[in-house]
């Protein structure tokens, strides 16, 4: 027995010694990729899964980049989203910064880093390469940040490759079974849900514990809103009255939907993942969520036919550009980074992104061959050409996501009246507004 123990200790000690040796060896090779004599290296990071639309399109972009830049190697690393979220500021402030990386758009992420001077101002490149001509105005919103790090105006700090928006997914088989037509107006939409309730089926799969419920709430508010209201709420261009018609309607309708049985009372505790899985399992006819579910629905729903349509009656919908490419200020090969971004904006890559189930920003509509993707992209074009991307309700203030989750949960549980909930979600918003001096 003593032998076993000694052996084990020896093993661990050996590992320890090897560790020290290995650490010593690996240091020189790390952090010095851009030596002048060796081949140049483009250090590229993103956190999309390899078999998703972006993963596929960007893999192709890497291939094309290497083909058009002989002597340059792309050193791609797939990062954990959590890692970038936690430590982007620290990484970008060090020598380990990549040359180009995917980063979350928004005031709290890209905005903050741009304000700290960690991101390169892309404005000259945008003008030179014409990227601004490929992106519609509401897509540009999340690419530009002002001196305070607030999106919407100022310098370009990022380039989005794809977009996302919230839509209504429906189970065609269940619609046919209950003789429900695809609704074109809001009244038809509620009538359709009435039919399901009468048949004993809860129509909406809702994840109240995460983002889905607040997006439904926001869709309802948008049905009564105009663009200036969105600009006030999201870009602080004016005052937002939380007791005004938009939010009042949203809160009351949401509470009403729970009463009518469109939304199950227990959905306040459901996570987004479980919501998606219950729809994919054919338990609910309708789910309202974003295009980020599209690829997964397409590859994993085998037992029934499904489709999607825009929220009936709305000209605006929750949605925005996707994550953006940023070039860190400490990047060593900025010229290569610009070239790479340019390739990802090319028609070929954009079309591939579209045909793989993503929403491209600059694709050729005729080149999208997959019928489901066509539906997805046509709906997006309808939205974006009418300037209909209204961003997400949790964007305006830091930590606002949790405020909204709690508020909407109270609506679903019926533990607060709509008016109380509106006051609850108004307070943190006003506080933040006072902080930024808006």
């Amino acid at each position, binding site marked *: 027995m003593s032998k076993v123990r000694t052996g084990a200790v020896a093993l661990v000690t050996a590992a320890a010694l090897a560790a020290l040796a290995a650490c010593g060896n690996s240091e020189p090779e790390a952090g010095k990729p851009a030596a002048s004599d060796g081949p140049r290296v483009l250090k590229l990071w993103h956190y999309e899964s390899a078999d998703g639309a972006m993963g596929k399109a960007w893999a192709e972009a890497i291939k094309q980049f290497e083909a058009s830049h002989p002597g340059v190697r792309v050193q791609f690393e797939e990062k954990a989203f959590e890692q970038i979220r936690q430590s982007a500021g620290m990484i970008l402030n060090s020598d380990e910064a990549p040359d180009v990386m995917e980063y979350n758009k928004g005031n709290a992420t890209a905005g903050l880093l741009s304000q700290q001077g960690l991101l390169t101002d892309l404005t000259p490149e945008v003008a030179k390469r014409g990227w601004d001509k490929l992106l519609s105005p509401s897509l540009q919103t999340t690419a530009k940040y002002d001196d305070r790090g607030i999106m919407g105006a100022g310098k370009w700090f990022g380039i989005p490759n794809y977009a996302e928006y919230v839509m209504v997914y429906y189970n065609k088989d269940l619609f046919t079974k209950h003789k429900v037509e695809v609704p074109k107006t809001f009244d038809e939409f509620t009538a359709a849900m009435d039919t399901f309730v009468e048949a004993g089926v809860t129509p909406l799969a809702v994840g109240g514990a995460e983002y889905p419920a607040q997006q439904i709430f926001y869709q309802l508010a948008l049905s009564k809103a105009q663009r200036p209201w969105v600009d006030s709420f999201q870009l602080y261009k004016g005052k937002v009255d939380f007791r005004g018609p938009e939010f009042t309607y949203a809160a009351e309708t949401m509470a009403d939907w729970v009463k009518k049985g469109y939304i199950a009372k227990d959905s306040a505790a459901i996570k987004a993942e479980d919501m998606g899985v219950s729809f994919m399992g054919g338990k609910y006819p309708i789910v309202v969520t974003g295009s980020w579910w599209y690829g997964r629905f397409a590859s994993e*729903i085998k037992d029934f036919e499904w489709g999607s349509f825009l929220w009936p009656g709305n000209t605006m919908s929750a949605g925005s550009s996707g994550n953006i490419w940023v070039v860190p200020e400490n990047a060593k090969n900025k010229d290569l980074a610009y070239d790479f971004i340019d390739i990802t904006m090319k028609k070929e890559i954009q079309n591939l992104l579209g045909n793989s189930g993503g929403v491209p920003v600059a694709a050729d509509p005729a080149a999208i061959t997959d019928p489901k993707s066509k539906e997805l992209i046509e709906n997006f074009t309808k939205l974006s050409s009418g300037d209909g991307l209204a961003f997400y309700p949790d964007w305006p203030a830091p930590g606002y996501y949790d405020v909204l989750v709690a508020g909407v949960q109270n609506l679903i549980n019926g533990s607060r009246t709509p008016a109380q909930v509106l006051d609850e979600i108004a307070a943190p918003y006003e506080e933040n507004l006072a902080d930024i001096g808006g």
Partner: protein
Amino acid sequence: MIRKYSVLISLAVLAVVMLVPFAVVTLNAVRSPEDYSANGPLSLPDGLHFDGIVEFWNRVDFGGKLWNSLLISGSVAVLAVVLSVLNAYALGVGRVRGRVWIMVVFLVANTLPQEALVYPLYYLAKEAGLYDTRLSMIIIFTVIQSAFGTYLLASVLGRFPHEILEAAAIDGAGKWRALWRIVVPVSRPTLSVLLIFFFIWTWNEFFLPLIFLISNENQTVPVALGVLQGDKMMDATMSSASALLGVLPAVVFFLIFQRTLTRGVTVGAIK
């Protein structure tokens, strides 16, 4: 008799409760994503599907991550035990002046959340040129773990029978010799338990490695598992596969050292 059975039954229930999460993870690790979406996480899979495991292994180069984790945890375990013994010998046996306060400092260091340490450590590591190296993790965790080890060992050694040490001193053993020939062998069971705990604790560390090990080639197993958690999406079957892979080494390690562990614990109990 009834008491005997009731103990047996409650133990069995406890064992089942402990094993259910592992069973669910295993179940989903060998399930295809389509099956997961159609039938949910709790049904029996409709066939064995190892693609998730294989794909995850290749995607994150799991072998490399295992080696990194082993390297860091192994070095930390050994170095932290050595450091703890040296500190504790001075504090517990040597009775340094002001040792109570030194112990208090160690205790406070133990209660500090890692989030509070991140920025100072980040700047130190950057200044020292150790940012994004495994060595930085080994140094940091050696210190963190030995803070606890010192605290624990110092109180154990504080009760070390002085007669033995005096006898050794009379026989001509210096302080150094007394440490390695007398104190260490006598407290060996405690040290082995510490070693194993340090190894497992360091193995499971997530937050600091996430911040410090930037390059994929330096990352540890828990950080690699994080790759699967996306912004809005998660891949349940592949997460299960990765969780299974992530937990296996710790289980194997535990099985190998299980006897040392229980012996060390019982030795402590008799004292």
